[in-house]
């Protein structure tokens, strides 16, 4: 690695402290994915490339939620507690687990929509394929409220209750 880059690379934090450093990655990935789903529907030529890109973003985002939930639990064990903070952490954690479950299922569903017909050797008509993808897009966009709410609850913990991850 060129030496001049070294000062710009952030330190890799211990697991207990890594939550604030990684949490924004799944949020951005899950929020960006529907744009590519939409492009996959709208762009006639090579629309499949956008759809596969959307699936990759969803997959990485869903994987990121697993890391986020686990690292969040580790960070919460070191957070200074009051009854209000414990309650707020509980709500954030529950919402994060729901988000993880929903987006994991949505990712599997989208993969099934893309590859299922070919695997089952029962291809959908172009019209049916577009309708299925539009329905998926609407459902996915609706579920994004879970990401927003989880992020909001995390923001409240930091900015309202002053909860910070312990930094080395």
């Amino acid at each position, binding site marked *: 690695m060129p030496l001049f*880059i070294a*000062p*710009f*690379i*952030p*330190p890799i934090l*211990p697991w*207990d*402290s890594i939550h*604030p*450093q990684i949490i924004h990655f799944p949020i951005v990935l899950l929020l960006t994915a529907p744009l590519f789903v939409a492009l996959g529907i709208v762009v006639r030529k090579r629309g499949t490339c956008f759809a596969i890109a959307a699936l990759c973003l969803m997959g990485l985002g869903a994987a990121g939620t697993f890391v986020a939930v686990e690292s969040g*639990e580790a960070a*919460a*064990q*070191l*957070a*200074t*507690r*009051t*009854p209000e903070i*414990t*309650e707020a*952490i*509980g709500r954030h*954690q529950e919402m994060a687990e729901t988000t993880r479950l929903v987006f994991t299922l949505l990712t599997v569903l989208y993969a099934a929509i893309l590859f299922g017909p070919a695997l089952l050797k029962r291809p959908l008509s172009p019209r049916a394929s577009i309708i299925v993808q539009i329905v998926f897009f609407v459902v996915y966009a609706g579920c994004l409220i879970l990401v927003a709410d989880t992020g909001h609850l995390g923001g409240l913990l930091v900015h309202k209750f002053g909860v*910070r*991850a*312990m*930094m*080395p």
Partner: protein
Amino acid sequence: MRDCKGSRRVFLSWAGVCSLGGFRLFAAEPGSKPASPETKGAPGAAPEAKGAAAAAPQLKVGSTLENLQTAFNGESNAHAKYLEYAKAADKEGYAKVASLFRAAAQAEQVHADNHDDVIKRLKGRSQAEIKLPPIKSTAENLDDAIKGETYEAETMYPAFIEKAKAENLPEAVRTFNYAQTAETGHAKLYKEAKEKLAELKGPEGQAYYVCPTCGWTVKKEDFTFKKCPVCFTAAKMYEQVK
């Protein structure tokens, strides 16, 4: 070629932003005060925690290892004391209060074990000197328990946590945090029991659930969660105490 330069620029700006972010996070760390021994006022409280909570007025904050040893001694004494209080409550016919004392005793044992683990990792030695206080009436025992738990939750553990953060010992912060949160819950349960003492008279005990990881203690009717709200241990791992 142009694309390549563009990617490099993007990477460098990303790295710069992350680096700045990292700096800001470190700068915001509240536990970055210089470590120094200090003494905190704790009216009606003792340095050896609950066991003798009412005897001495001040808490001496030493190194984290010393604080862990103090906490271990306090938790071990509390465990023994609450078991005695439970026997006294049973004799007086307050079986529900006896259940609460037994549940709290189990939680104190969890805390003592957690402190002991960290002490061993820090190459220290755990030692408890059990000194049981005089066993009085259940009402008075509840008063003593409330005083001890409140002292630990509001004075002792917050000071120990601050010190452990300053010494950058996350394992110690975790065990103190678990204990502090559970003690807050115990104080609340004892206060409720004191207020409704007359209603709690009777031969039938009451079920409490105790987390085997952090000692969080709840009544049966409040045992509605799937994961411990403090340490996220699965609720099915909780132990019932009656």
